[in-house]
Every structure is written in C-alpha cells, then in structure tokens.
C-alpha cells in the first residue's frame, strides 16, 4: 500500500471517529446538566476543598442556565471538530494541498483560541452556579487560566505554523501541476 492510500484509509477512519465525537460531545454536555444532581462530587469540585460545604441540589433554573452557558465552549469545540473533520474528508479524497486546507487550518486555530476564552467563561459561570446554594460569604467566582489553556494556546501556535507551511506546500503543488 503506497503512502497516499494509507493517508486515505487513516483519514476515512478519523473522519468517522470525528463524526462520532460531533454527536457524543453535545450529548455529554446535555446529560451533564440534566443529571448534575446525581453526579459524584468529584465532578463538581467547587464545593470540595478548601471549604467543604454540604452539597446542595441545583434547582432546575440553574441547571438550564448552566446548560446554556455550556453552549458557548461547546459551539466553539464543535466548530473545531467539524473543521478537522472537513480536513480529513479532503485527505480521504486524496486532496493533500489546497487553498481550502490552509483556510481550514487557520479557522481551526482561531476557533481554538475562542474555545479557550469561552471555556474560561464557562468554568467561571460553573463556579457561581455550583456555589449559589452556599450560605452568603461562601459563594465563589473562580476565574482560572491553567496549564490546559496554555497547552491549547501552544497547539494554536503550532496549527498556525502548520497553516503557513501548508500554504507553501499549496504553492509548490500548484507549480508542480502547472509544470508540463
């Protein structure tokens, strides 16, 4: 099997996997907010250390607010995944370099930055929602920028460089196609 056939086969599988993620991730977000009162406390870490409080049930109103807030990072994440899926659909067809590829890489990088920003907002909103039932003085607003966000931003930088390299590859490919 030559290299292009391997790329096509691998891309076909990855395309399928990404299609699966496009369905499963929103389902995860929906079920998280629907069953939030039945989840183990380790998944809702605001009320644990350093000030342990008696876990309180989230009222339906806060569950709905939580779900709508989760749509912010979710939409950015789904946009990232659909872009990557589109990229692999091109590879599946044997198209390796095109202007569309470069554009997809750039769009993905920008969407990842957006995802990081919206995730910070979402996590902050979660801290407010989960501590809303605490007594006055024990409610929290947690705004965090952790190593996970930094890692994503490093990935964004790498994706931008890949887009740049892909653009050079596209130019070389065009030169090759127009060489008789």
């Amino acid at each position, binding site marked *: 099997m030559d290299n292009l056939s391997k790329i096509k086969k691998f891309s076909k599988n990855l395309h399928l996997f990404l299609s699966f993620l496009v369905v499963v991730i929103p389902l995860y977000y929906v079920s998280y907010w629907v069953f939030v009162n039945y989840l183990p406390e380790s998944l809702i870490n605001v009320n644990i250390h350093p000030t342990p409080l008696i876990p309180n049930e989230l009222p339906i109103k806060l569950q709905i607010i939580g779900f709508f807030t989760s749509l912010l990072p979710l939409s950015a994440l789904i946009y990232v995944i659909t872009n990557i899926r589109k990229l692999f659909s091109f590879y599946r067809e044997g198209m390796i370099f095109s202007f569309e590829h470069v554009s997809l890489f750039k769009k993905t990088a920008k969407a990842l930055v957006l995802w990081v920003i919206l995730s910070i907002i979402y996590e902050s909103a979660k801290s407010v929602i989960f501590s809303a039932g605490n007594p006055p003085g024990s409610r929290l607003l947690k705004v965090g920028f952790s190593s996970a966000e930094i890692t994503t931003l490093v990935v964004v930088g790498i994706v931008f460089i890949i887009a740049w390299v892909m653009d050079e590859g596209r130019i070389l490919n*065009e*030169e090759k196609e*127009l*060489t*008789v």
Partner: protein
Amino acid sequence: MPIIVNLDVVLAKRKMKSVELAKLVGITEQNLSILKTGKARAIRISTLEAICKYLECQPGDILEYKDHE
C-alpha cells in the same frame, strides 16, 4: 506573460493533432492544453526536447518572447 507559446501554430504547420502529439511526447492532453493556452508555469527540458523531436522544430519555434511595451 511576455512568453508566447506558438505550439498550435507549429502543430497546424505539421498538420498534427494535439492528441497525437500528447501521445508521442508522453504527456496528458490536459497538460498539453495547459502548455498551448499559456497557463503553464514551467516546461521540462525533456518535454521541450520531445516536442521539438516530433514536430521537427527548434525551441524558438514554440516559445517566443514578446515585450508588452
């Protein structure tokens, strides 16, 4: 582009069809069309050599430089 490809003129003089030349040279009709329409960015020496061989001409008969001014 100031380089003019006169391949169709030479083909007409030799009364040869593009399909025939493409087969003799060993390139696709599509590539020959790219060359004829002046869309080509580059031409391989081996392609030029084969075209000159089968059309019994010189590279200068196929390629011409014309300044726009």
